[in-house]
């Protein structure tokens, strides 16, 4: 992926700088970490200072926050949502549950590591991360987008089969997300690199 970075034209750099300024976060609380989102969104910590605003529909959102554990039922809806979001899109994993299972490591109902099912841009340590940590992660994301390094979303197209296989393993069969990921790949001119 790194060799593509150098080809960024001057226009790409400007685009990256600007697009980092108005990220919209999908208003979907998937896990218990979502209780720290209202304080981040509202008066006390106010993430709108960075142009980040909660957006209700996946199609207009840029950031998908996986706020903690993902039960299998929620994972199905999250994948539907993720595939509806327009690229470039970024997934931020909150807390320990997204990394290696967190507190629910021996639970039968939750998936253990998020990067098996979708590419994750940033992880935040915490159980659950505080508003200050969430806002720092947004700043980090804005910087990475500005530097053109935030390309985890391409990974979903490149290694779609890998993710697909894991998803089907958890759901016990293919699910119809009514989004043709393969055709999306062409629109972004991404070659598939095996993973």
């Amino acid at each position, binding site marked *: 992926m790194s060799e593509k970075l150098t080809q960024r034209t001057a226009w790409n750099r400007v685009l990256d700088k600007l697009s980092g300024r108005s990220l919209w976060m999908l208003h979907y609380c998937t896990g218990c970490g979502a209780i720290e989102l209202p304080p981040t969104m509202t008066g006390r910590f106010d993430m709108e200072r960075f142009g980040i605003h909660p957006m209700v529909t996946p199609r207009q959102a840029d950031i998908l926050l996986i706020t903690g554990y993902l039960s*299998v*039922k929620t994972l*199905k809806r999250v994948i539907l949502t993720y595939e509806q979001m327009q690229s470039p899109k970024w997934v931020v994993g909150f807390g320990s549950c997204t*990394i*290696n*299972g967190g507190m629910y*490591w*021996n*639970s*039968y*109902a939750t*998936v*253990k*590591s998020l990067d*098996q099912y979708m590419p994750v841009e940033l992880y935040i340590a915490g159980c659950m991360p505080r508003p200050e940590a969430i806002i720092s992660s947004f700043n980090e994301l804005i910087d990475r987008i500005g530097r053109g390094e935030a390309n985890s979303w391409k990974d979903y197209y490149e290694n779609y089969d890998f993710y697909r296989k*894991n998803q089907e393993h*958890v*759901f*016990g069969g293919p699910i119809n997300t009514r989004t043709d990921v393969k055709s999306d790949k062409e629109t972004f001119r991404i070659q598939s690199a095996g993973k």
Partner: protein
Amino acid sequence: MTNEQDIINRIEAAYPDAVCKKKQERRVEACLPPDRLFDFAGRMQSHWNFPHLSAISCVDWINEGEFELVYHFWSYEEKILVSAKIRIPREEARFISITELWQPAKFFERDIHEMFGVVFEGNDDLEKYILTEWEGPPPMRKDFVTRDFANRFYHFKEYEAEWMGPQQNPQAADVQGGSNE
């Protein structure tokens, strides 16, 4: 203010084969034979002024091969909680539903059905509510060990932190249980 003993006397008078005991302050335990329960639930609501069914709990006594259903009734006036306990066999557990008397029982019975596999006859809404994506056995039964399932079914992280050096990395979750056996 009636106290626990009055309640016990009242129950034992109505149900001679009930074994009642005062557990703590405002807590009475009544062990009943299963066939008495439906009548007991009706009488609690109509005659004895216990309008609130706080919860129905189910305990899986796997060694005795029985499920224990505990019905918790609360009276706002007498401020006492009566826990009626019955035992039903564990294999193909079936029991009568009390939903037409008690509306809260709808949720509790469906929950016990999902988690333990107890079939409540007369409850029309028993299909899956929480575990819709789960094909395995009722998870709360004691013979289902969630740790083994998690280790077999899910993928755990194999870290390669730089302080670890090349030679070894930590094992997956199944190696060391969180609590010493």
